[in-house]
């Protein structure tokens, strides 16, 4: 019998093969075996479950995996994580107070036994932004924080802002961790961050939706940003809470030119898509042969174009849109769809936005950066 002492590429490949089959039981068994052999749960979360999830996303983008298979693999990853959570010691659920005596005896006196739960750090609410369905990264962070001594309330994927704020008033956590994997959700993330600030609770943002180095997190009001779950754990354990800074009730800055165009794009989204679809066949003859499912998926893609454009304007960051068109070009190429299909879509949207210079400039820039074939 081979003893699993660390996560090497053979273990990772084996685990990937299991989740590829949607084999939840097998994935959980591998996790259990690693823990039995003394691999720290943090390493299992980050180097096995997390790293595999990244590969799953790449396999989907490269068209090697169907979206259904990606879902099955993700479900297996969640199951493996749940199996890990069930086996690792829970930290104390409340602050370590001595209720019998006065304050001087109350804090900091805990038996230091090996393997004991880590010190209680506080309570944290963890949520994915409204409309954000990639729950696994947040769930992994929840486990990492729990292992580090936090009491974690994981509120789930796609948490409506109102639910989040209600939870904050009900439980009074020491921090909110907000996950956003897709930049189109940034306007909603901004609303959530603003509301958390108004409720007096500092926010740490995470997820690649906030930009390559989290540069959009600060702009949207987050107190901190973490690139990885482990970074978030470190920041929260060493440098938290951030000092109180009075929020300005009225933003002193001038309204950005993006504001008006963002509003227009968001409100006129249905009409923009409908018009583009009506003109599609004339601009892109292959569309004549689309069945209903293809037509709907094209309309959905046009919706993505508008959503990413709107998010780029909202944040004032062209890269959000340019990264999207670049990524889409690659994904389409992997599926043998010529770049011309996307090009046509961008033209159809642009031609309806003649009165909106920022939108037109951004669309033109993305068109000029696309490959010509």
């Amino acid at each position: 019998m081979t003893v699993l002492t660390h996560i090497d590429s053979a273990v990772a490949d084996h685990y990937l093969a299991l989740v590829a089959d949607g084999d939840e039981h097998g994935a959980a068994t591998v996790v259990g075996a690693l823990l039995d052999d003394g691999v720290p749960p943090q390493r299992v979360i980050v180097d096995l479950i997390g790293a595999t999830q990244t590969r799953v996303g790449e396999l989907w983008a490269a068209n090697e995996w169907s979206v259904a298979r990606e879902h099955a693999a993700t479900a297996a990853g969640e199951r493996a994580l749940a199996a890990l959570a069930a086996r690792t010691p829970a930290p104390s659920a409340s602050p370590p107070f001595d209720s019998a005596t006065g304050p001087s005896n109350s804090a900091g006196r805990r038996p230091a036994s090996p393997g004991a739960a880590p010190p209680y750090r506080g309570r944290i609410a963890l949520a994915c932004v409204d409309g954000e369905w990639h729950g696994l990264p947040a769930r992994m962070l929840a486990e990492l924080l729990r292992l580090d001594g936090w009491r974690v309330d994981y509120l789930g994927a796609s948490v409506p802002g109102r639910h989040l704020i209600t939870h904050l008033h009900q439980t009074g956590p020491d921090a909110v961790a907000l996950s956003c994997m897709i930049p189109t959700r940034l306007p909603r993330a901004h609303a959530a961050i603003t509301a958390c600030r108004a409720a007096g609770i500092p926010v740490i943002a995470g997820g690649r939706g906030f930009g390559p180095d989290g540069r959009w997190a600060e702009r949207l009001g987050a107190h901190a940003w973490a690139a990885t779950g482990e970074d978030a754990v470190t920041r929260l354990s060493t440098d938290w809470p951030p000092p109180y800074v009075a929020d300005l009730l009225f933003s002193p800055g001038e309204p950005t030119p993006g504001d008006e165009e963002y509003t227009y794009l968001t409100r006129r989204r249905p009409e923009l898509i409908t018009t583009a679809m009506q003109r599609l066949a004339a601009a892109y003859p292959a569309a004549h042969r689309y069945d209903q499912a293809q037509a709907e998926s094209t309309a959905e893609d046009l919706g993505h174009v508008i959503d990413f454009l709107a998010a780029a304007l909202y944040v004032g960051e062209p890269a959000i849109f340019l990264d999207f068109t670049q990524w889409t070009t690659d994904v389409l190429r992997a599926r043998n769809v010529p770049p011309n299909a996307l090009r046509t879509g961008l033209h159809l949207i642009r031609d309806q936005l003649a009165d909106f210079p920022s939108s037109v400039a951004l669309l033109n820039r993305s068109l000029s950066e696309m490959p010509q074939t």
Partner: protein
Amino acid sequence: MTASPTLLQASLLAEAGHRLSASLNLRRTIRTTVELAAAHLADAAVVVRPVHRRQSSWTRLAPGHPIEEGTLREALLAEVPGLTEALDGFPPIPSRWLDPAQAPAWLVPASLGPIGALLVVPLPGNAEPSGALILARGGPDAVFTSEDELLARVFAARAGSAISAAVLYQEQVDITAVLQADLQPPDLPQIDGFELAGSYQHRLGGDFYDVFAPSGDNTDTMITLGDVCGTGPEAAVLTGKIRHTLRALRLVGTGPEQMLHVLNQALLQSGRPTRFVTVVVGSIIRIDHGRIRLTLATGGHPPPLILRVDGTVEEAPVSGTLIGVLPQTVVRPATVELAPGELCLLHSDGLTEARGGPAGNEQYGENRLRQALSSCQGIPGTAAVERIRQLVSDWSHGGHSDDIAMLAVRAPTRTPLSLRDGGASPYAISERRPRPRS
């Protein structure tokens, strides 16, 4: 470059007003109170809450320490000069009458040194005090001037009203939490022979699902999913009654069809004729070769959908009338068998009625649901339910289709250990069994 005292006072009170009004949470409001007090009014600040069951909880901030929290026996309160008076709501005793030397050693950490001046101020509340604020300054020459005392009282008035608002909110939250706990869908049991997967959006009232695992003489597993007309507390209460009625019927061995008849009678006789319910009930047993058999009955609810192993989607051939409206219900049950890999989806109509799409106001509809389900061929039940939920959310463009409940039953495929490496796993994992879930 010193700002005038008045300006400092104004800035403290402005910051206090903003920060104290931000949270409705009791613990945070108290923590904010000691933070503000320790930053602006004293070296160390302690909030002591009124006695509850012979104990007082306290929150303290002192130099060089994080905020600390704990509880204190009632008998110890009298050791702090002026504290019992403040907790009883009497006007504060002037600081110069309080002897700091009498303060007990446990009141502030030793790092502060001997207390030079002590001030104890009541925190006013909802017709009774919401606690007391203890302020301490270190050093032999420390004093609280009468201006300091006045500012502390104004600050305490603001903090006290914020704390008492949070107390009221917390009481409401506690009541709601107790009531809601009974309405949440259950954790799905792990049952040998098939998978169960559920999805439910938190909302007061409306949809529900439940699973009754085999017990006693009942060897089958029973599932139910329903939708009570309306939302809000009234619908929630009715939902709770229905779930308990079904659970009781299950305990006496009632089958799906009979369950709906009895539920109908029970609702009609409970006298709220304006509220009706649609519900699906199913009884699941394992049969041979990894197959499972479902006996399904519906009362006015959309028929369950069945995903076959080849990807086709069909409707369970059941029909029935609404429950809780007519004295006689018509229930036409049906039996459905699932082969390994096949799935039966119970769902509320919120799924097909979710509005969105490119035009913004189109219903998701049965055809799209069938296509979505068809695309779940070969994936586990949990992943299928999650995928459909996500597709509908994308359809409604992140809009809030709060009234969606789903419950799926799937006969699992026997996943071979992956054959990519020739079937020979390099790890002896087969001898390790996962621990039973508690």
